[in-house]
């Protein structure tokens, strides 16, 4: 269906909602397509193609927010969803902070991504080259997976306050996984990268890094229990950030689920720590001009030189906190109401090379990967996670570690960052450099 055709159907449903007693109504439509091709040991193994669409109906009647969703963007199903949303108003509590975005906001310019679809022949050539790059070392027993995926999507948002917005996004991702083997020990190694177009990804680099990752894990063993200075590799740093970021969400602060509440302006992290939420981030996969509530996106400072700068908000929680939306009203899909979510986020790079940091550590631990991230408590910040990495001895990377745990508290850890490195790494739409922690408890032997 054309964009005009869709808008006509949506306009009908908006009028219908008002005629049935809604004070305001908003309709969100999302569509996505993806195509993924995968090789296993150099032979094509999987082809996956999808096309998906859905809509949600959000409305307000007498101060009560109603909601419903559906699949078929046609007149009758959309009207039925409006009826369902109105029914839900009978039951829900009023929420005076819930509101829609009115037309007339200024939106940032986002570069249009014009990448041509990748042909099947091109994909095959890329996957074969990746397979060869991954298999170079004798210790690589198998190239379990090389894959190329293309994604495209669009969002249409209209409401009875005159809002009428449309955006498109497009990106490509590449991944590789290998099985490395030596002396009877087997390990899986992997790597992933995404970008607006395939020519911006070093595909063979992804494959080589997957191989290096698997090889590095070979022969690892539990290490001695103790307290060590710990260098977090960018991958592990990003894992920690994903646990930390929920504490910067304004809804969690208002619900009392963030220990950072009421601490804006305080130094909660070491000097030299800068953290941002930025939907417009230059390297990001899908730069976004507006969020799922139609609010303009922007760069939001969370930490600057260790000082807490603020929280992220959607319309409702901005209103609860007496603030403006930060462009973080996001819904994972059309099946949920927008809550406060993260756009692309990154920890700013420092100026010390990681090799230099390692060189200064006489006895420490280098954490490459963490196991069981969902086991951490994002409210208290307490974590106890599996560790994959290496020991550092005499300023050099030493034997591999597995079967060990790292335990601590995210907020203590922020205060204890001693060095932020210059190896800023973007994975998908988030980024971080390595950083060194003064001391962390490691359990093993």
């Amino acid at each position: 269906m054309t964009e005009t055709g869709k808008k006509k159907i949506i306009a009908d449903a908006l009028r219908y909602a008002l005629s049935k007693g809604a004070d305001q109504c908003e309709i969100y439509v999302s569509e996505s397509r993806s195509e993924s091709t995968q090789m296993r040991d150099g032979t094509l193994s999987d082809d996956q193609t999808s096309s998906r669409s859905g809509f949600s109906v959000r409305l307000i009647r007498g101060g009560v927010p109603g909601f419903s969703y559906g699949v078929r963007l046609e007149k009758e199903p959309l009207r039925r969803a409006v009826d369902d949303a109105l029914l839900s108003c009978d039951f829900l509590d009023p929420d005076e902070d819930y509101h829609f975005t009115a037309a007339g906001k200024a939106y940032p310019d986002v570069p249009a991504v014009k990448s041509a679809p990748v042909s099947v022949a091109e994909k095959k050539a890329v996957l074969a080259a990746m397979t060869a790059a991954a298999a170079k070392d004798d210790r690589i027993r198998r190239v379990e997976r090389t894959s190329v995926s293309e994604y495209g999507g669009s969002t249409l948002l209209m409401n009875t306050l005159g809002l009428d917005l449309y955006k498109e996004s497009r990106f490509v991702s590449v991944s590789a996984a290998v099985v490395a083997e030596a002396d009877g020990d087997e390990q899986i190694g992997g790597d992933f990268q995404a970008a607006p177009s395939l020519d911006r990804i070093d595909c063979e680099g992804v494959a080589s890094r997957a191989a290096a990752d698997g090889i590095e894990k070979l022969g690892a063993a539990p290490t001695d229990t103790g307290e060590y200075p710990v260098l977090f590799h960018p991958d592990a740093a990003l894992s920690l950030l994903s646990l930390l970021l929920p504490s910067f969400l304004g809804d969690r602060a208002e619900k009392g689920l963030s220990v950072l509440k009421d601490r804006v302006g305080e130094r909660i992290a070491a000097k030299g720590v800068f953290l941002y939420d930025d939907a417009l981030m230059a390297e990001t996969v899908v730069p976004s001009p507006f969020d799922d509530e139609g609010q303009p996106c922007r760069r939001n400072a969370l930490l600057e030189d260790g000082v807490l700068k603020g929280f992220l908000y959607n319309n409702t929680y901005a209103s609860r906190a007496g603030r403006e939306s930060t462009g973080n009203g996001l819904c994972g899909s059309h099946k949920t109401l927008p809550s406060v979510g993260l756009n692309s986020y990154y920890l700013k790079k420092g100026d010390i090379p990681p090799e230099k940091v390692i060189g200064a550590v006489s006895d420490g631990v280098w954490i490459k990967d963490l196991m069981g991230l969902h086991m951490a408590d994002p409210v208290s910040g307490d974590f106890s996670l599996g560790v994959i990495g290496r020991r550092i001895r005499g300023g050099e990377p030493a034997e591999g570690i597995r079967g060990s745990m790292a335990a601590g508290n995210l907020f203590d850890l922020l205060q204890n960052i001693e060095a932020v490195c210059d190896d800023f790494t973007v994975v998908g739409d988030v980024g971080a450099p390595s950083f060194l922690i003064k001391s962390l408890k490691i359990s093993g032997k």
Partner: protein
Amino acid sequence: MMYRYSEEEIQKILNTAVRHGGDYADLYLSKTATGSVSAEEKKIRRFYRGLDEGAGIRVLKGDFSAYFYTNDISLPSLLALAERAGESVRGGDVTAPAALGNGVAVGSGGDFDLEDIGRRVRRLNGEAWELSEKIHQVTINYGDTRRETLMASTEGKLIRRTSARKRFFVQVVAKSGNELQTAIETLGDTETAFSWSDELLFEKIRRAAKRAERQLKAKEAPSGAMPVVMSSEAGGTMVHEACGHGLEGDSVSKGLSVYKNRLGEKVADERITVIDDATLPSHYGSYAYDDEGNEGRRSVLIKDGVLEQYMYDIRSSRRAGTSSTGNGRRESYRFAPQVRMSNTFIAPGSDDPAAVIADLKSGFFVRKMGGGQVNTISGDFVFEVSEGYLIENGELTDLVKNASLIGNGPKALSSVFAVGDDLGFAIGTCGKGGQSVPVGDAQPTIGISELVIGGRGSR
């Protein structure tokens, strides 16, 4: 049933899918109605219904798989999808599909009374806040899905399945000074009717509130290797991670499991028998037919410590030269099936649970487990301890917090020193390859001579 497609039309879709040389094709069509109620901040924050529908077509040729899905389920759309999926396996001889056999219809319909549930959640949420002054936040979520599925394959299968799945979740946050502690309780089943009493639901809330409050006074967990006893109340995260995932036929047939090539070998202590059972009535991980149209069944995976069999879906069974064990599951039409567990448990043994603790001089007791993860190729697994105690001279002493455990599947199950005569089930959501499916798991009281505890305290 909702799908108006005749057998001729379904046959035509399948014929189209294999006309370019695929040697197997299947169609999965589903329509899901979801009801959701959520209370937080002392208010009902979510109360809605939604519909989702779509179809996936898969074509296999040898080890190659093409999976195409759409949520336009009109006949022209499905025929076009079948054509495109079929084209991606172009080449070779065309295998004529079997004629569709007599269709099987399982399950009964039924809808949910969301208003009634909403009223209960509202009342329960109000009462929860009265439980303690330490309560800082209460979140209650209730989700109910009713799914109608049509599955057909070129092997002549035609299954129409109706299924229900309900889940109740409560999270309580307790606060003392600056310290916040969180506890979660869940309940889930596959019954059509809503059969949970308010008393049962409130008991779950009370447990979460008590545990969150107790954790405020807990000491930091110890660190290092020690003997561990896991209660039958703890849930089955350990068995799910320590061996369940490693026995899934996709990992095994690709050589990505520590349990590969070990059928008939001793992989665990002889007291250990591990079963995956999709047929347990109304359990959260149960199903009459899996998502490839094969009957759910009870499989003994490890018997008296010896590896008896792996779990398979259609694709991995083709690779291994065997047949599906009814473990092909998917989150929805948006995903190709994978090998997944149903309800997985360690069978009860003969030890007295109380004596297992009483016989230990020192160790760690797990009363409740949280989530976990495994690396199938090495067998290393981790799981979270939601409630744990020190064992000293045969007695439980300090309650501790912030502990997760790490171990290695075959090593841990080979160093079992006790298996209790009790058994307790828990529900979970298992994530794999980007898909989440509902599972159940259980174990009796189990003693393992050594796991590593990753706490912050000293030993």
